[in-house]
């Protein structure tokens, strides 16, 4: 057990640096522009709207990495608040 870690409330600054770098590099390497994300956002709204009424202002899409620990595989994560499901005539 690392005594240093127990006694310090904040994580060491090098861990912060490492986490920040991992995210920065995912963006740099994927070379995605804000326009790209806006385009994806527009298309998602179009597709989902057939099935559900969504809160367009609350829709959030970002480039991050997959949930596995220490992963550096990029992942697109979308948070799409649904106001109401559409009745699909079931």
């Amino acid at each position: 057990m690392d005594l240093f870690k127990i006694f310090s409330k904040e994580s060491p600054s090098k861990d912060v640096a490492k986490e920040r770098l991992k995210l920065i590099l995912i963006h740099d390497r994927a070379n995605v522009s804000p326009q790209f994300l806006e385009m994806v956002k527009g298309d998602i709204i179009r597709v989902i709207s057939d099935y559900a009424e969504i809160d367009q202002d609350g829709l959030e899409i970002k480039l991050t990495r997959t949930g596995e620990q220490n992963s550096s595989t990029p992942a697109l994560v979308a948070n799409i608040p649904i106001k109401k499901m559409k009745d699909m005539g079931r």
Partner: protein
Amino acid sequence: MGISIVVTSGKGGVGKTTTTANIGTALAMLGKKVVVVDADTGLRNLDLHLGLENRIVYNLIDVAEGTCRLKQALIKDKRFDNLFLLPTAQTKDKTAITPSQMQNIVETLKGEFDYVIIDCPAGIEHGFENAVAGADRAIIVTTPEVSAVRDADRIIGKIEAKGLDDHQLIINRIKYEMTKKGEMLNIEDMTDILAIKLLGIVPDDEKIVVSTNRGEPAVTDDHSKAGQAYKNIARRILGEEVPFLDLEDENTGFFGVLKKLFKR
């Protein structure tokens, strides 16, 4: 036929010129015939690191423009007969030479020398393109800082896109006390993030300043830790397996010696 190696980084001030001067000198000390080439046209520095600034007559741009022959622009080092400098112009800019001219010059040098070490300017523009044009191999220098690591990653991407797959990393200016406290990115963090093979670790060393003041590379000073690290790097370039300095530090550093005392 010799081997050409470009020393690059993206970010400025991380130690490219220091690294070029020291690796070049160390390889010469190991008996190789070496030429170090300054590709930082307009902001030349390599001559200062070697203490050769007063001997420059012709330069890289003169060679490209045909003002002189390549041999005339080469300056022999003060200390080592088998070490040469090809300086560049201080009053021209980086577009004064093209990548294909650079490639030809490096190719010719490879016929004469065992190692051609090219000091790349900062940035990813024309100067970078020139410096990597004739390179067989690349050394990427970074420091344990977020901005330097980010730029190194960008450069690695650029170099790989050119098919320059033989590339390794040097981490410069490591401060052991800070890494121990977790206040500085450590070796593992950086190789993990950059996913590139490690060629060497160079400690932050005040003696580097003294070396640059005198125009005598740190490898010529037996008491310089950075100099020792560069000597190890030169041997690794020659294919020898040399353990990394931080491991050696465990045994020879102050704490290492204490540890040994307590172990007994």
